[in-house]
């Protein structure tokens, strides 16, 4: 096994590293330090695509953001992301290079690709990991199960196989709520490109030796990208403050919720009912079928507190609940609660914060 940790990096449409990918490089640093024995682990930025110049440009940014080296897998079949070709391309390279670990951020693509790659390598995988500890010379990866009600520590049994790990955004580093996007971004220095550290690996699926002749890789054809929920929803995973609304909020309530979120430079979240009623887009959904958030402050309004919602926000540092029902379950998991009508309380709270700030 090579003492290398590969970090699979993603870019936006302009070729800029996603903030989640910068975060992943910072996490790779923590993992390397935790795993280090006699020999240091090298952190390798892993990028795949078709455009050499774009990839090289991104690789240089990754080298400035904590990577020791970069590997670019280049091929026409990688022009558009697909789990089928990307898992084959990365799997083939990892099969010969044998890195100790390949890290993924738990993004839409990360969760699509990482398990398929694990199966391609017949390797073990830990998904949605939130922390790493070393105990008796053994690395224990921590993840949550049973809707966040249990912390499970898991180790890899096969030391001679590449290990695949996907990591929850906004997690890691001690309490499981360490790194936020802002911190690793701060680490990015405009370091001059270390050209020698970039390796290019061409990819063509037909070159694969591991498949029988004539077996082609088939992938779905992307027909359309629907308009993105171009709003604060996408920032939920890394937001320090979230103001969320539920059944009790209504469309009018969400206007107040947005106003308060703006005031606190936070993001807007929602319960399942609010999304189903069309008051807000799915990107804002917090809970079992949405995303899990860990802000410093979680203010929720008109959310009764179903188990499905609580699993998505129980790790917020401070929970403030506003609900007219004093028996609402949400109060059981709150630090502070106000019993009352959110349509009256939110304007008062907004005014109070403005007054306090002068």
């Amino acid at each position, binding site marked *: 096994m090579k003492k290398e940790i590969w970090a699979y990096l993603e870019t936006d449409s302009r070729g800029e590293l996603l903030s989640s990918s910068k975060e992943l490089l910072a996490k790779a640093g923590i993992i390397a330090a935790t795993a280090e024995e006699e020999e240091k682990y090298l952190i390798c930025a892993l990028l795949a695509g078709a455009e050499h110049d774009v990839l090289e440009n991104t690789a240089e940014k990754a080298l400035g953001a904590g990577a020791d080296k970069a590997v670019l897998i280049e091929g026409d079949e990688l022009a558009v992301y697909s789990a089928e070709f990307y898992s084959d391309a990365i799997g083939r390279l990892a099969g010969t290079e044998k890195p100790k670990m390949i890290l993924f951020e738990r993004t839409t693509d990360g969760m699509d690709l990482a*398990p398929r790659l694990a199966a391609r390598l017949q390797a073990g995988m830990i998904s949605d990991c939130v922390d790493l500890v070393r105990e008796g010379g053994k690395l224990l990866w921590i993840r949550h199960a049973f809707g966040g009600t249990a912390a499970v520590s898991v180790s890899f049994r096969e030391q001679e196989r590449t290990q695949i790990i996907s990591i929850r955004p906004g997690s890691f580093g001690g309490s499981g709520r360490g790194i936020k996007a802002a911190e690793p971004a701060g680490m990015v220095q405009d370091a001059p490109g270390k050209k020698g550290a970039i390796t290019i690996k061409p990819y063509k699926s037909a070159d694969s030796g591991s498949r029988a002749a004539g077996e082609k890789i088939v992938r779905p054809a992307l027909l359309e990208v629907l308009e993105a929920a171009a709003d604060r929803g996408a920032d939920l995973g890394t937001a320090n403050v979230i103001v969320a609304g539920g059944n009790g909020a209504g469309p009018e309530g969400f206007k107040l919720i947005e106003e308060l979120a703006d005031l606190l430079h936070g993001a807007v979240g929602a319960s399942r009912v609010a999304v189903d009623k069309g008051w807000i887009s799915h990107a804002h959904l917090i809970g079992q079928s949405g995303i899990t958030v860990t802000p410093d402050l979680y203010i929720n309004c008109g959310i009764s507190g179903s188990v499905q919602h609580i699993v998505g926000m129980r790790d917020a540092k401070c929970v*403030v609940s506003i609900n007219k029902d004093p028996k609402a379950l949400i109060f*059981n998991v709150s630090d502070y609660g106000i019993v009352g009508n959110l349509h009256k309380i939110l304007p008062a709270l907004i005014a109070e914060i403005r007054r306090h700030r002068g």
Partner: protein
Amino acid sequence: MLQLMNIIVCVKQTPEAGRGEMNPAAGTVDRTSQKQLINPFDLYAMEAALRVQEKAPDTRIIALSMGPASAASVLRDCIGLGAENGYLVCDPAFAGTDVRGTAQILARAVRVIEKREGIRADAVFCGAKTVDGGTSMLGPELAQFLGVPQVTYALHCSLMQTPEGQEETGQQEVTGRTGLQEVSGETSLKEVPAGTGIQGTALCVEKEDDRGNRIYCLPLPCLVTFTKASFQVRYPLIARILEAESMELPVLSAGDILAENLTGHGISEENSVKAGPDKAAMQVQEVELRKMDKQSQIIEDPDPVKAVTVLAQRLFSEGIL
């Protein structure tokens, strides 16, 4: 011609969310009340299969589960909803198998079902995650071991069809709205756009994506994992539930799974199937309950301004705001 669709829906028996496994306030597990039910995300997969069947009534739906004998109940749930049959992979030798081994075993189970039923599994539908382990890994791993393309975190899907007389034009990327046809009548199908290189019947799948949902044309055979869509899942029919109770469900043992001479793209050799805890890639060291020790301070004041003043003072003094 619309091809006859065979869909295998993979389901898992999991603890009922919010009932047995834990009391969020106390952080305790009450195992006595722990009820085992079908994983809710698998119900979305089942619903998606039933919706395909509504458009193409010849569609065959077969449920598949791996677990203890008691897991037969989730297969009967699927039959109650409209599946024609349910296969249970059940063997003490498979107890303690991790996700990798489970995906290998289920891939071989799909091939066994194909042989026994004399069909091709055109689509395998799974829940995007489970409410117990919640790894979201099984679907993509199974797709790889079956050697088929995948779409994960789908909201819904429908059938697509190449227009008659359309020639193969080679694969190229299709972008924009050009390809997608609106379904006007009950029986009309979306057309597979030219230029995708996809022939015959395919699935049109909407995938949930934070950067904007994506619409894919997914060629058969394929695998799709489903997350919660905005529509409700249906209730089972009483008559079908009763019928399911009296049905004898086929059970696949380790012998059935490993002895059959199964080959094909991705399928693991018998001797490389990693069944049981000894061959697992992962080892669970410890499971710890995550207690919630919130000291809730509830403010009840009929005057909202007064209530807010009390709250704001505390938040400011603790540096939270």
